[in-house]
């Protein structure tokens, strides 16, 4: 469904991605793990078109998307819950969700989808008229995921959904991700919390300073010595 081939991307002279190739198939949960500064967020931003591709190709459902602007890529069916939530602090919960559905015009279905994400995260229903910036960190993360869902993406990109959250909230969010996937959503998950991510995902990639160094099924990565030593603290 999504194929990255030898992608290079840079911030000025600093090369953040040095030729990475990876693949996400329809119906999968694929995770990308790696240390701070490895280039995980950069990978997602590059897929979305916010960061420019310097070299290499990205294709989505057989179609090249690497030179398209972000607003077109969203319309093709890729949406992201970016790192650090980045919800709109001065829009209410409902308005944030409506922003998520910006590319859609089917008002009725949007209303239904809002009900659907409220079903996933009931706390958001209670807070519907509250300004996004006044939500707790966990609530904001739920809102960020819900907002990304509102675009009805074919591929959902999640950047560290567990960041800074209590274990119980993380469990809840991972439960929701699993549920989404069961209903057919394809998910590309970036995580620091490698253990949880690998338990959830079907396959995984390990990113080290801009290069993919390992690539296997999630179960194999969980059992690999290298991954255990570097990312699972064993």
């Amino acid at each position, binding site marked *: 469904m999504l194929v990255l081939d030898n992608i290079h991307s840079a911030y000025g002279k600093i090369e953040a991605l040095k030729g990475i190739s990876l693949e996400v198939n329809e119906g999968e949960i694929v995770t990308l793990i790696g240390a701070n500064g490895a280039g995980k967020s950069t990978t997602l931003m590059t897929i979305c078109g916010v960061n420019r591709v310097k070299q290499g190709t990205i294709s989505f459902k057989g179609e090249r998307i690497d030179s398209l602007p972000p*607003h077109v890529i*969203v319309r093709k069916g890729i949406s*992201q819950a970016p790192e650090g939530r980045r919800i*709109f*602090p001065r829009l209410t919960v409902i308005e944030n969700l409506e*922003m998520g559905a*910006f590319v859609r015009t089917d008002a009725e279905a949007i209303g239904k989808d809002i009900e659907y994400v409220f079903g996933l995260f009931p706390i958001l229903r209670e807070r519907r008229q509250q*300004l996004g910036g006044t939500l707790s960190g966990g609530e904001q993360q739920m809102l960020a995921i819900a907002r990304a869902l509102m675009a009805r993406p074919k591929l959902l990109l999640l950047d560290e959904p567990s960041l800074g959250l209590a274990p119980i909230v993380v469990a809840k969010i991972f439960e929701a991700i699993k549920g989404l996937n069961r209903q057919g959503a394809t998910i590309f998950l970036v995580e620091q919390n490698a253990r949880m991510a690998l338990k959830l995902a079907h396959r995984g990639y390990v990113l080290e300073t801009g290069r993919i160094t390992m690539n296997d099924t999630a179960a194999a990565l969980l059992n690999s010595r290298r991954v255990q030593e570097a990312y699972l603290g064993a």
Partner: protein
Amino acid sequence: MYLSRLKTSFLAAVWILILTFPLAGIGTRETKVVTGEESTIKQELVLRSGPFLLAGVVFACGLLWLGVKPLGRVIHAVSRRARNLSARGGFMIWKRVVLAGLMLAVIVAVLSMPFWGSERAMRKYVDLGVEVWLYVLLALGLNITIGWTGLLVLGYVAFFCIGAYVYAILSIQCGLPFWPGLLVGGLSASIAGILLGIPSLRLRGDYLAIVTLGFGETIRYLMQNLKSVTGGMQGLPNQDISGTIAVPAWISDGPPRSVHYYFLTLTLVVIVVLLLRRLNNSRIGRAWVAIREDEVAAQAMGINTFKLKVLAFALSAFVAGMAGVVFAARIGYFTPDAFKFETSVLVVAMVILGGMGSIPGVIAGAALLWLIPWALRDPIPRFLSTHFPAMENVGIEDYQLAIFGGILVLMMIFRPQGLIPSRRASYEMGLEEEEESR
């Protein structure tokens, strides 16, 4: 809390004193000394009381605010009680009635103002009213970029200038009538906005501010130097260029010219407000807010941020261009000096102090920031000199600007979110408490 307020007002007062004292604190008094045959003029330095008075006023305002805040608490508490008591929300209805009454009073006052006295007597005030409405238009236009989209535009007067010149020139040279001129002026400013926006909107905050500032000055110099078309510093129209700037057909005949302009500008304000309100609740308005809040996230939502920013620029320039056309038609003669950088800054201040993003706030800000300097220039000194001759040596006129600046600073200290903040502005300013009781 109260102590810190006290401290803030005290510091503000001291600060005002420091600022104004060197400018206006020391004056000279000339006395004629007659000794025998010859008389000499002796100059002596005198201390003027003005700065101290001003600092006192600042301090008093600060203290007053101290009094107002707890009072506000009491009112809130009482109102909450009242709301709880009347289960059907009787209090809310009262609040509505009072608000509606106030609105009605303002509307009646605004509509009837030109007829309060004879045309002769009222003329001055009607002209003042026209100026206020023109600035309200400018502030409303600039609010689109600064308040809604979060783009700091510092050379806004350039669009006003373009509207005025395009209309004046076409009217003189080709006899363009007023109404199509209004459109042409707006569109030209809009096109200039788009041309400026396309390269510069890729820049971020501070850079955009600098580029637009430069644009504002460039346009003014351009008008100065294109002597053959604009008359340069001699202004438009001048001896070399025959013809006059056309005024709207229904205005040119009959004496009450300024009343006509009053209603013309008022109508434009009403139309612009109605359109902006629609826009604010539309997809576009929402997208602008999203861009202001977080541009990358807005992109990730599928918003074409570049296109929408250019659109904000174009619309905002259109409003200023229209205002420029009215300005040119009304004044009949002007030079590039009418479009100085100070005007841009003043309009920015109107938007910020009125309440960024809030339409009523921006209107109030524009009206107030135009009326305060006027009051300091005209009625207040007149009132003081007739009723308090002793105040003569205070020399209020000398530091209108200082007082004006002081008022601006005070407004910023005590009401950082603006006079009438938009619902969204309150979040960062820590006003959720007031928010929920609204």
